[in-house]
């Protein structure tokens, strides 16, 4: 089952394989049990957790687009206390590390969630979703301004010594500027990309399809953009990168690794095929075999050479 060729190290976490679920697409791990257990993944990344419960956006919340989908869930989640009482006991029964995705509307909210979870041993690290609107800055996402991104990173950095991953928004002119700012502010790793802002209009009603008007585009459609950003960020920072955006095959995952990702995450691809994570791991193993690669780390960033 475990294959030493797949083992990677992300921000001090030793992962038995480089595949993670993308936050928000895998719930807290329970829903995909009919298909595989959380232990399939190198680590579990939970959906976003906030201080208090968030109700989320009005429906419709999802919509299919060419080779992709839009979502405007609005980060619905039961809040950190419910997370502790319901998700943690479930995740504790598995061996794989747990990375908690953290959301907030202010710097203080991010810090509060991390502080609340920091002593829980099954929580191995944090992933900050900085695509959330910053209410103090008029609702502009934290992740679109280097200084805001650095500020929330630095504040959370003070609150935990556990691995801190910052998840970047792709809706920016220069993603390397954000990446450098959060690296400087203490991030141990970066994950990218979050969703691209998009929308759809229903011709019959002549109105935006999504209850929230705009939503996040994910899935294979965005893969070329995600890959380019991983490639650029790899050149700009020295912390490890978790690459994601449209991964639907082992080949896609390997492209991200060659672009510079240490680990990769699969999200929307699971909606296309609930067995995808298993297929990706099998496919990566096959590729390593065929190409006689001793450890997947050899392939990391190889496209830059």
């Amino acid at each position, binding site marked *: 089952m475990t294959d030493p060729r797949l083992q990677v190290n992300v921000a001090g976490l030793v992962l038995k394989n480089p595949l993670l679920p993308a936050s*928000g*697409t*895998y*719930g807290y791990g329970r*829903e*995909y049990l*009919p*298909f595989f257990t959380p232990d399939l993944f190198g680590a579990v990344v939970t*959906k976003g957790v906030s201080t208090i419960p968030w*109700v*989320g956006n*009005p*429906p*419709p*919340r*999802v*919509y*299919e687009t*060419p*080779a*992709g*989908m839009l*979502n405007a*869930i609005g980060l*619905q989640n039961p809040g950190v206390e419910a997370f502790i009482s319901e998700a943690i006991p479930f995740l504790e029964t598995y061996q794989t590390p747990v990375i908690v995705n953290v959301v907030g509307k202010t710097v203080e909210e991010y810090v509060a969630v991390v502080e609340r979870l920091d002593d829980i041993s099954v929580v191995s690290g944090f992933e900050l979703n900085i695509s959330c609107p910053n209410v103090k800055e008029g609702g502009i996402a934290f992740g679109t301004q280097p200084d805001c991104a650095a500020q929330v990173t630095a504040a959370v950095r003070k609150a935990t010594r556990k691995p801190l991953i910052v998840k970047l928004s792709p809706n920016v002119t220069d993603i390397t500027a954000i990446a450098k700012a959060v690296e400087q502010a203490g991030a141990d790793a970066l994950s990218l990309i979050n969703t691209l802002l998009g929308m759809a209009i229903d011709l019959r009603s002549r109105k935006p399809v999504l209850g929230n008007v705009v939503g996040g585009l994910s*899935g*294979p459609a965005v893969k070329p953009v995600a890959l380019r950003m991983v490639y650029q960020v790899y050149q700009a920072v020295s912390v490890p990168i978790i690459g994601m955006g449209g991964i*639907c095959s082992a080949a896609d995952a390997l492209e991200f690794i060659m672009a510079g990702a240490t680990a990769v995450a699969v999200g*929307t691809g*699971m*909606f*296309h*095929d*609930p*067995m995808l994570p298993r297929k990706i791991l099998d496919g990566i193993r096959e590729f390593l075999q065929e190409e006689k690669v001793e450890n997947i780390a050899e392939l990391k960033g190889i496209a830059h050479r």
Partner: protein
Amino acid sequence: MKQTEALILERTALGPGYYYYRLLCPELADKAKPGQFIEIKASSEETLDPLLSRPISIYRINPEEGSLAVIFKTVGRGTRRIAALQRGNKVSVFGPVGNGFMLPEEAGRIALIAGGIGMPPLFSLAERYPEKDFTLFYGGRSATDLLALDAWEQLGVPYKLATDDGSAGFHGLVTSLFEREHLAASFDYVIACGPKPMLKAVQQLAARFRLPGAISLEAYMACGVGACLGCTCATSKGYRRVCVDGPVFEISEVTFDD
């Protein structure tokens, strides 16, 4: 819930844009309950568009044969692609998904209200409980939109039809028909599946007559397993997932926006 490549045992066109498929998928047929649905992949191996599977209700459950039957209408490219599949082809499906119907023991006379393509799950329910006293109220645009009436007849469930154009049964809404009939011979329980405006009307009628019941909802879905929170509907308990908390909800629980 299981994923499998289901063999298409039978494909029948039931009329303009309506298709009946019988799928060999023993692991799913073994578990399936009335009111649940399956997710059918609308794309082939070599394409990522359309990306998402399409939820389709289970119409008949045959655990002996290991098969599930569905009836669907082609409304967009996903259903059109599925309709292009032929007998002998395989199609990727997973399920069964959802809570399914719960029939209270005490429910004696049960009204089933179907709007258009909302009929199939009600059939699986009626077929599962032959001892129950069901009456079907079935509405559609036109006579050609009322499907599988022979199957209902074989089942021995009396039905009353309504069409928008009067081409079969009552000329008008199925909910008006139900209202009239309910006043004549009252029911203990109501179960409805169909378009939102119909469900809303049924909800109002149920409230007026203090009739307990359940409705089966539709929603645009992404994961189909409860993970993404994409398919939520507003309820008195907050947003709930249609795919796994539903598709069947207690009739008064759902909040329809206006």
